[in-house]
């Protein structure tokens, strides 16, 4: 067990690519935590445990032993948090397990949207914050400007910001010294009853569920019987350890320490993040302020391309869910796509990660339907339902009104692109809340409907700003608006998987864009195909895909039979990948691409 005064717990917050992973590598290397010969780049990101613990890419920890210049030996626990907005919730809860943060800002770039979002989590968790200006080896580095920006935009003192090059190693010693001298030691009472925070948990095929804990008070030992305060369940601790960064078994964890325990727990769902862990006997009654579980905000249908693979898909989803409590699913049937699952995700990245894993690790090809947010549908009889799927929209005659989720979006962008960004936000029904300048960058804060953002907002933002804008958001609440369900008919057949909720004022435009897109995406058939968008029974947009006129091999003699057969087999396979709606084959990519709005 380590003396409290010799422990420092911290996290690193940074915008993507500002050098968080590289800096973590240097800290690990400089302190000799990992032998030089075992050192590989982005060590924390490539840890096995990260892969094992699944998609949520929650947080990684490493225990660093450091002999400081004052001659003392310190234990530094780093919790590395993901930077993406989908996982903001993970970030905020990890922050509550540590006392300080390094705020890493790329000195050639300056403060970005994720810098802001993440630093606010740190401020909320009462962290001591040490600013680090990274990449000073680059000629474009401008430490004075960036330090000033940190003071202006974030409002923290940056006069003593450390100038670092995580690439060359310059400033790493100073960073370690600052961690020791500027960040506070944790507090806690060794003699008090055990009180540990369940920071995170994930499933390991050999060890069962691994629980990451921060000890607040008391001592946790192997063999202890521990109790989860939320539900009173008792577990026998069979292993205790720390990450260096590989799992290392130790005898006990005392106050201020961060480590893991295993206790033959079968499912991640049996562990609640934020829960308080204590001893079964003589435990504390006093729970830490809990976190509420992360709520899925984006929903979509996942269907196997080959309907025979439905059971395989069920298996894959069950397995993934074991390790990811933030992802929800239920069975769904679609007239067009057959059996599949309606799944809920923390955001689009989370959706993509899960989808990719199913396709790659379980080798199941998927059709992904349009992402949708959760609408509140208020019925005339006074009840309210959560609508996860536009296809389930009740008949308008029984609906009183609808509410949609809104977000507060923060966008940082160089001046010259501001006009385009404001235009984009306007088009997406945004309401400006704030617009300020810091040097040559503008910060725009918008109130936006989430459904205008889930799909391709970020792509569009990147493209109109040539990649210079950064973006982050948080959910704010629900608001009534004039929303309608738009359905799509292909060859006069409704395609349920393409129906979507839209604002009435934008319906015509969306309908037209959708029909035009589908016209490009659906291959020509032997007959002409009308493509329509409709609200209720009223057609609001229409395109016609003309009939295919030429598709024949001009020369086909004895030597061509084999080649021709292969070609046809390939085409047949391609056809199988499409879905049939009446007599029309629709390629699977149409279900996603048709919804991207290019305007």
């Amino acid at each position, binding site marked *: 067990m380590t003396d409290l005064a010799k422990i420092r717990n911290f996290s690193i917050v940074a915008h993507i690519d500002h050098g968080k992973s590289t800096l973590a590598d240097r800290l690990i290397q400089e302190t000799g935590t990992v032998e030089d010969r075992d050192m590989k780049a982005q060590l924390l990101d490539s840890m096995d445990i990260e892969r094992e613990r699944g998609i949520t890419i929650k947080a990684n920890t490493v225990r660093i032993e450091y002999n400081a210049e004052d001659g003392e030996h310190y234990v530094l626990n780093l919790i590395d948090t993901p930077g993406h907005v989908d996982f903001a919730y993970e970030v905020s809860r990890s922050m509550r397990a540590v006392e300080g943060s390094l705020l890493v800002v790329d000195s050639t770039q300056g403060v970005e949207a994720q810098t802001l979002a993440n630093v606010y989590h740190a401020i909320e968790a009462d962290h001591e914050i040490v600013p680090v200006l990274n990449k000073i080896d680059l000629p474009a580095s401008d430490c004075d400007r960036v330090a000033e920006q940190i003071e202006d935009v974030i409002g923290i003192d940056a006069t003593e910001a450390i100038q670092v090059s995580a690439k060359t190693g310059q400033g790493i010693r100073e960073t370690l010294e600052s961690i020791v001298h500027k960040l506070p030691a944790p507090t806690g009472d060794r003699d008090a009853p055990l009180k540990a925070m369940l920071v995170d948990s994930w499933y390991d095929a050999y060890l069962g569920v691994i629980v990451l804990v921060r000890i607040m008070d008391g001592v946790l030992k192997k063999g202890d019987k521990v109790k989860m305060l939320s539900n009173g369940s008792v577990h026998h601790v069979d292993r205790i350890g720390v990450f260096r960064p590989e799992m290392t078994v130790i005898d006990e964890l005392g106050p201020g320490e961060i480590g893991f325990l295993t206790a033959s727990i079968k499912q991640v769902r049996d562990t609640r993040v934020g829960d308080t862990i204590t001893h079964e006997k003589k435990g504390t009654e006093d729970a830490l302020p809990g976190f509420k579980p992360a709520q899925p905000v984006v929903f979509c249908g996942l269907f196997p391309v080959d309907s025979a693979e439905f059971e395989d898909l069920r298996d894959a989803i069950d397995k993934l869910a074991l390790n990811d409590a933030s992802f929800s699913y239920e069975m769904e049937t679609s007239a067009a796509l057959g059996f599949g699952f309606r799944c809920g995700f923390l955001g689009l990245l989370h959706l993509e990660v899960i989808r990719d894993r199913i396709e790659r690790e379980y080798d199941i090809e998927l059709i992904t339907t349009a992402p949708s947010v959760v609408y509140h549908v208020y019925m005339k009889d006074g009840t309210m339902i959560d609508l996860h799927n536009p296809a389930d929209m009740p008949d308008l005659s029984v609906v009183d009104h609808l509410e949609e989720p809104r977000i507060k979006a923060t966008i940082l962008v160089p001046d010259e692109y501001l006009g385009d960004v404001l235009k984009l936000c306007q088009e997406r029904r945004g309401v400006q809340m704030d617009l300020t300048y810091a040097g040559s960058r503008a910060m725009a804060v918008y109130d936006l409907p989430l459904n205008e953002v889930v799909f391709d907002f970020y792509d569009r933002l990147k493209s109109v700003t040539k990649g210079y804008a950064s973006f982050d958001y948080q959910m704010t609440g629900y608001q009534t608006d004039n929303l309608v369900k738009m359905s799509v008919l292909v060859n006069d057949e409704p395609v349920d998987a393409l129906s979507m909720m839209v604002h009435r004022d934008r319906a015509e435009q969306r309908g037209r864009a959708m029909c035009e897109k589908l016209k490009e995406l659906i291959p020509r058939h*032997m*007959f002409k195909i009308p493509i329509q968008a409709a609200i209720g029974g009223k057609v609001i947009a229409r395109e016609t895909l003309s009939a295919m006129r*030429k*598709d*024949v091999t001009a*020369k*086909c003699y004895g030597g061509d039979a*084999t080649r021709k057969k292969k070609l*046809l087999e390939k085409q047949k396979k391609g*056809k199988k990948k499409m879905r049939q709606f009446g007599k029309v084959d629709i390629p699977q990519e149409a279900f996603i691409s048709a919804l991207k709005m290019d305007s």
Partner: protein
Amino acid sequence: MDDWHNGGFGLYVHWPFCQAKCPYCDFNSHVSAKIDQEIWAKAYLAELERNAPALDGRVLNSIFFGGGTPSLMHPDTVTTVIEAAAKIWPFANDIEISLEANPGSVEAGRFAGYRDAGVNRISMGIQALNDEDLRRLGRIHSVAEARAAFDIARNCFDRVSFDLIYARQGQDLRHWQAELTEALSMAIDHLSLYQLTIEEGTAFGDRYARGKLRDLPTDDTAADMYQATQDICDAHGMPAYEVSNHAREGAESRHNLIYWRYGDYLGIGPGAHGRVTLAGRKYATETHKAPGKWLDQIRKGSGESLREELTFVDQSIEYMMMSMRLSEGMDIPRYQQLSGSELPAERVQDLVNLGMVTISDQRIRATAQGRSVLNAVLRELLVD
């Protein structure tokens, strides 16, 4: 009775050399400075002898010398092959012996020799009837030379066909209508009219991929050209009997009909494909493609590089693919016999309703409209 009897039995002989490589061509053709005709004659003989025992007792319906440019073969080489074949198989009374010729003056000088060797039909690659377009196609002959060669061929042979390539760069519908009308005034009783296909791995293919092959007609224009071709040829009494082949009644290429009626054919020469039925099993065969390698392998005993048994289902697919190209269409009972299953009734009905196919006398036939989108029709008929 084995299924191949429905199509007959032919011999395909591949000659892999040309004077120059045309930029659109993906046939197995090579340019070579010196070719020892005697060595080649011997190699063909060896391949015939290797295959003879297994194919004993058959009657030969046709021989086809294809290329490359078989009109670069010495007439003696052609004689050797024909005589050897005659020793192995009795010839059908109406045996067709065709040779592909390029319309240069050199070749024309050999036509009488081919006739004396036993060739009774010439298929000449004229490709275009204006010099500028011939140049763009990379052809080394002029229209005048082609016409002269064609006249010499007509004097030597009763049956002379020629090939044109249309839907070329810069060609529009009216231009093609005029060219086709001119071609029909020259034609005797058979014409092959191919839409230009951009093949991967050719000079045109590369240029196309780089966006440098300009002024190709759009698919819609090409479709109009195909339709116009049907109309004009019908009006001249030369209807299509296959997707790209037109003939007066009775003048169809018997050798090519063996392919499309899915008979048996032995393929010899570099890169030649064959379909042969032995003891009730049908095999797909291939030979080494590179001329040098082929010769080497024959010295070691065999030019064959692949022999693969085709399941009955494979055969049914090939039969459908080939026979649906013909205006006579596909024999439904024969197809069912091979595939062991019925045609998909609902899809067939849809195709009938769309005017893509007709059904009568137990045959399914693609209409002219259906032929122009035949791949799509086949995809419907073949989807399981």
